[in-house]
Each structure stands twice: as C-alpha cells, then as structure tokens.
C-alpha cells in the first residue's frame, strides 16, 4: 500500500506550493499516472482522501490522468505503444521494447483559490 506514501508526498508538495505561492485552498488537482507505473489509481484516490483531510488539499477533486505506455524497440528502432513493461514489439515481433513513457507519477496542475 505504497499509495499511502505517495498520497502523503502529494499533499506535502501541494502544501509546499501553497506556502511559496500564497494560496490556501485547492479546488482541483490533476495528476498524471503512467499506465505501467507502480500506482493503482483507485488506491491512490482512497489514500488521498484520507491524508488530505484537514489540509489545504482537503475536499479537492483529484483528477487522475493515465499516460499510455510507449517504448523504443531495439529490434526495429520504432517507437511503439506497449501494455506491459515486457511487451514484445508489436511491429517487428522480436525486439525488446525499452519503456520511454508510462512510468510517470506527476503532479501536473492545480486549480487554486
């Protein structure tokens, strides 16, 4: 359940931004999660609700956006979309695909008051 630590880190980041930029309430939080990352969106949402309570992020709408997995194939040199880290290249069917997208875990945007 490392989503709890991730939710805590997210709230910490938001509070830090609030102090440095001078906002005291967050209405919406946009987070990008890679489809192949270590994070389960539902678990993150559950943990976020628990740990954001009583902070400036409390009650904010958490908008989770999935970033599709993509990688570079060492066999054919193409960038292809992948559904698993270990996918065989869908184009050439042989090369190993090195993941280039899909591992993100980023606080993308805040809507604040």
């Amino acid at each position, binding site marked *: 359940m490392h989503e709890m630590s991730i939710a805590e880190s997210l709230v910490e980041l938001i509070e830090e*931004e609030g102090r440095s930029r001078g906002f005291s309430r967050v209405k919406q939080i946009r987070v990008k999660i890679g489809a192949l990352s270590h994070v389960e969106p539902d678990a993150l949402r559950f943990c976020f609700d628990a740990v954001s309570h009583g902070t400036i992020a409390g009650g904010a709408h958490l908008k989770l956006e999935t970033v599709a997995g993509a990688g570079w194939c060492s066999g054919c040199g193409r960038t292809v979309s992948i559904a698993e880290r270990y996918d065989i290249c869908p184009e050439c069917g042989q090369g190993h695909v090195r993941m280039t997208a899909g591992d993100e875990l980023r606080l993308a945007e805040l809507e604040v008051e």
Partner: protein
Amino acid sequence: MCAICGCENTADEKSRSAAAEPPPPDRNAAGSAHLSVDGHPEHNRHRHSHSHDDQELHVHSHGGDEAIDFGAGLAGIHLPGMSQERIIRLERDILSKNDAFARANRSRLEAAGIFALNLVSSPGSGKTSLLVRAITDLQPRFAIAVIEGDQQTSNDADRIRATGAPAIQINTGKGCHLDAHMVGHALDQLPLAARGVLFIENVGNLVCPAAFDLGEAHKVVVLSVTEGEDKPLKYPGMFAAADLMLLNKADLLPYIDFDMTACVEFARRVNPRIEILTISARTGDGLPAFYRWIEKHAGGAAPLAHAPA
C-alpha cells in the same frame, strides 16, 4: 494590469516594457491566449518579476514546465482585491522529495566510498540468512554495516549484530517499504566505515520498495526458488528496477518443480540487462560469485588493508 498573465501590474508598466513584451491584447484575447499557449509563442518565453499588493516581489515564468496562469480562471482576468481561481501548472514528480533525500544519501555514500546495496524480495526469501552468511564471509575483506527494514521487531538486526557487524533496525510500523528519508536517519546513527559495504535489507515486499530510491548503488532482488519461476512476470516493477537477481535456496531444486530456464527468461524479458546468480545461503553454493560481483562493482569501497590476498 498585465494582460499577459492577469496580474495587477498597472503601476509598473515600465518594468513590463523592459521585458520586451508585446502590447496587451483585449481581455478576452488575453484569457484565451493563456488557455492556448501555442497561439502566443512570444508569451511562452518571457520571464519577469513584479510585485503584487498582497504578495512579495516574485519572479515567474510562463509556459515551459512550470507556469502560473492567473488569467486562466473563469473570468480570464485578475483584478486587484478580488480573489480568483487560478491554474498552476507544475509537472512535479510526486516522489521528488524522496528522490531528493535519495540523492543526498547517494552523494554521502559515494563521498565516503561506501558501496550500498538495497536488498528487496518477498518475505521469507532468505535475505537475512543470506546477509548473515555474506557478512561472515566478507568481514575479513570489507567493513560492513547493515540497515534492516521491517514493519515490527528487531529480530533481523539482532541476527546481524550476532555476526559482529553494526546494524540499525528501522521499524516502518504500517509502512510497506523503506524510504530515503528513513535511510538518511539510519546513516546518521550507523557507524559507517569509509570504503565499506552497506547492505540495506528492505521490507519484505515485491511491490512497494520498487518505487522508492534509497540512494543505493544497486537494487538486488532475491527470489527463492520455492516462490515459483513466474514472479518476475507477476511483479515486473521490482525485477525491472533491480540490477542483480539472486536465485536463492538452490539447494531445494531437486525437491521442487522450478523451471530455472523459464525464470531466467522471464526476468530478462522484464529487464534485459539484469544479471542473475544462483545461490544457496544455507549451503554457501554460488556465494563466491556474488562476492566477486560485489568486489567488481564496489568501486570506491575497497577491501580492508590487512585483508589476505
């Protein structure tokens, strides 16, 4: 008012012109300009400082990775004395705090020439038994210290201390992994010999520790053959993050159905560059190869001066 970002810069037109900005468009255009950055490339590059009535002087940039967009609220403008929702674009890595602690740990360890390994596995794969054996075998050659992570008890640290090596137990409570901040505190307390080897035994868990860099030189995943050959496919994150896989409990291979070839293939499919060694912490088989791997990668760490050749 600055019509570019909507901030209240009416009394400070000169500083704005110094930033070589174009004349302000009408309000509606300013509102939409920020929502569609591409339409106004000249705004994407400027960076200026200005004061707000209610805030200290600050500098902010528009466009790029980090942008404060005061004009993107419902009204599209920002008037003095009126609060307005605003959009702040950040693109900050959520684990950036952990990563910063990890970088600090890494520089500290590298500066002292300490070679740190983060051992990860399921509970019961034999990490502690492996460490007890490895410490006993390696102590004549390296100064060794251990950080033990478990949710509860100091049993593992007690087992390590019995070898004579200093060990710090971190109890994570409900936490399912060690993080770089915890390890930083442990480094403060642990008597670390310069140019030694530090083993960090993570909480037994094949999922969560994969995401948390501790500042180690390498993650080493221990997989016992009794767990089944398909673990790399079931928990790809961990095997992708590791540089070395130790297949432990090899002495049990005659008694179980474990497909070694398949396991190696699965691990390489997830992580083509992973190195793999087969060992038995109980019998000691295969451990010399692990010790050679440590010596080869230890870089800054060096065998003790009095060590036999």
